[in-house]
């Protein structure tokens, strides 16, 4: 979430300060404890499941990741040429305040530090494995990507459209709730449930000219004010079989508009409801990793408003990643080459025109083949080629665009 626009100097001082603290402590005690993926983990554990530096006698762990890439986009034969992007620098920090009480935060610097966003900053209190309190700025558990979005975990430079542009990932809000997990044999079951601030009317009044949940993030005082005055509920159930894979069902919804102002009714109350299904699995025999997410949004809009802002959306993404070569290269044990493919689809406006009965367009379809090289699981170099088709609301011939990406993402 954008909290403010800091000047560049402040931003760089903050980054430098955090890194210096880490560096000083690391020099005092350079023990590195790197946490790796675990079969016990669910997507909801992503905030814990990151490589971090920890230091003896200091109850703080520190980590982060950096993403940078080149990009060459051509839209209907017209290109702006090659550009270099340092998309994001993310710092995360965890502190054990006492037994059973932890603080975790994730701060993202985008666009060279012009935007600083607290994506996550929460206090966790563990009462029981099935019953933990979390409060602060929490990531709404909608889909899988929103909570498991670290760049080095993915083989693609771009984030999935359905997750980022439809579900507004990375979406976090001020609020609190509970989460927990339990195990039985090969089965793991987890849940999350939070009450947070909700969306705003920007989702149906924005410069995208469509119902667009991420527009909510352009608002002011997001962590202080709840636009509608009504809490938004978000919750997720996830189940994983260690031999099969994980599936998650999530929901997020609530009133999004300011229907009362100063005690006076000024609009009809309007809700937005979001439902998502996510899955991931690894085919043991081939090592093929499959991950995906589908989502549906229902947003109430007045009949007298414009159909430009649809009241139903749906989208899907699916990644297939196939390791093709794994060996020691230079000094990297188990360096891996992968081929991968992603399918993205979003229908921004599901329905038919009242005037003609014909189908409303406003759809995006993209396929992205790619190759990646992982010298270690913490670092990925990737080349992607994305071809997309964007159809306008009237269903006119799709605008085509092709983009080459070459870049890296690495934890540090």
């Amino acid at each position, binding site marked *: 979430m954008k909290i403010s626009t800091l000047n560049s100097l402040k931003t760089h001082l903050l980054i430098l300060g955090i890194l210096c603290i880490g560096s000083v402590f690391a020099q005092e005690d350079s023990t590195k404890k790197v946490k790796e993926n675990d079969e016990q983990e669910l997507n909801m554990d992503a905030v814990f499941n990151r490589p971090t530096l920890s230091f003896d006698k200091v109850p703080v762990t520190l980590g982060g990741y950096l993403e940078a890439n080149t990009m060459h986009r051509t839209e209907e034969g017209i290109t702006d040429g090659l550009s270099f992007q340092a998309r994001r620098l993310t710092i995360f920090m965890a502190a054990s305040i006492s037994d059973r009480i932890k603080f975790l935060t994730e701060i993202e610097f985008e666009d060279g530090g012009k935007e600083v966003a607290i994506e996550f900053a929460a206090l966790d209190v563990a009462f029981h494995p099935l019953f933990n309190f979390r409060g602060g700025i929490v990531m709404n558990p909608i889909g899988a990507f929103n909570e498991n979005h670290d760049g080095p975990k993915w083989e693609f430079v771009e984030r999935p459209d359905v997750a980022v542009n439809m579900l507004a990932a990375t979406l976090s809000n001020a609020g609190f709730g509970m989460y927990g997990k339990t195990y039985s044999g090969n089965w793991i079951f987890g849940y999350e449930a939070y009450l947070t601030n909700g969306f705003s009317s920007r989702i149906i009044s924005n410069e995208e000219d469509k119902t667009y949940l991420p527009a909510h993030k352009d608002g002011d005082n997001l962590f202080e004010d709840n636009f509608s005055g009504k809490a938004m509920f978000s919750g997720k159930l996830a189940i994983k079989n260690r031999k099969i894979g994980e599936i998650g069902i999530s929901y997020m919804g609530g009133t999004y508009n300011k229907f009362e102002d100063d005690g006076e009714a000024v609009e009809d109350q309007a809700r937005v409801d979001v439902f998502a299904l996510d899955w991931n699995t690894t085919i043991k025999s081939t090592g093929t990793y499959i991950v995906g997410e589908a989502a549906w949004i229902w947003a109430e809009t007045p009949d007298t408003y414009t159909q430009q802002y649809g009241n139903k959306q749906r989208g899907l993404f699916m990644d297939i990643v196939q390791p093709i070569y794994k060996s020691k290269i230079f000094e990297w044990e188990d360096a891996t080459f992968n081929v991968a493919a992603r399918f993205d689809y979003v229908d921004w406006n599901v329905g038919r025109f009242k005037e*003609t009965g014909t189908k409303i367009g406003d759809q995006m379809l993209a396929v992205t083949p790619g190759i990646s090289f992982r010298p270690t699981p913490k670092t990925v170099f990737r080349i992607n080629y994305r071809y997309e088709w964007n159809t306008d609301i009237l269903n006119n011939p799709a605008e085509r665009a092709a983009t080459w990406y070459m870049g890296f993402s690495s934890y540090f």
Partner: protein
Amino acid sequence: MRMKSYLFGSLFLLPLFFSCEVFAPQEPEEYELLDGPVEDLTMAEAKRFIKGDVAFNDQIFTAETGLGPIFTGTSCVSCHAGDGKGHPFVKFTRFGQEFPGVNEYLKQGGPQLQNRAIPGYEPETLPPGAPHTDLIAPIVTGLGFLDAVRDQDLLDMSDPDDLDGDGISGRVHWNTRPDYVKDRPETISKDGKYITRFGKKGKMYDLLHQTADAYNQDIGITSYFEPYDTYSGDKLQSEIDRQTISDVVFYLKTLKAPIPRDQDDPDVMTGKALFGDIQCASCHKPTLSTGYSPIEALSYKEFHPYTDLLLHDMGPELDDGYTEGYAYSYEWKTPPLWGIGLAKDSQGGDYYLLHDGRARSIEEAILYHGGEAVNSKNLYRGLSQTQKDQVLKFIESL
């Protein structure tokens, strides 16, 4: 050895990456698109064209930036996708005036019905019994050429009393205009009225008049030119700056004329000849020319819009009982036919032709013609199917 192969493979990928265009979608042929500037703009004019392009095609209005509160569309492009003809999704209704002169429903929201509203507001509804018509947006390319046609040329084409006896009596629309518009070169006035030429009834004087009015009536945006809010009727601060409107006007003036296709096709060539033979070209004039324009690329050019910009009696079937300015309700300005073959690409793949989109094909549009066009329509009906197909193919090639 294995490492060398990796390095070799990596080196192979680099030229692949940098030869990006090879795998990119190719630019559509110029004749497939309606957007794009006229030829020979100066670099300064090209920059201004792009500024107007961005305002016209990318600027979306929201409640925060002035949309409404009652409106018909949220942007210019919502009515003019790809600079082409509009879709019934954003058709708009005009009401309140049955005879030449004054709209009697101005205090009840006329002349345009803002049929949509931002949340918390109620849109306008049609007053019972009010004369009205539905309209869809016209194609906007080549407007600068139409704007630069000299008034005298329009007068020369007009024949209000049908002195030549051909059954066609087109007339210019003498109408009032707002104070903020400036005279076009060699403009002609009569009794305080001017020759107006834009809009389905030809009631708008020029592209500034058209643009400022559309921002106000379609999107609910007040400006220096049209400062009155369509909802409250109050004079409000401008919600768009003059420069932006000026850039959009410049963009509209300098959008290229649609490029005809398949002109060497024998059927198209025969269809073109038949088009003249059955007197379609009496109103849908193939060729006009511009006078002086401050934009050199538009000055003294010959172009092919297939219109005479005059008002014609189109008969009872197209008479909706509503009119504007000093036109009669049965009169419509001859719409340019250029770009009609590309209309489907901005209308979602289907044709919605005539002023309200009621005709779903070019032939259906022809058969709706009446009044002064009855003779032409009957001549068309008398053609063989092959000849009809050739006429339709020609019109579609424009």
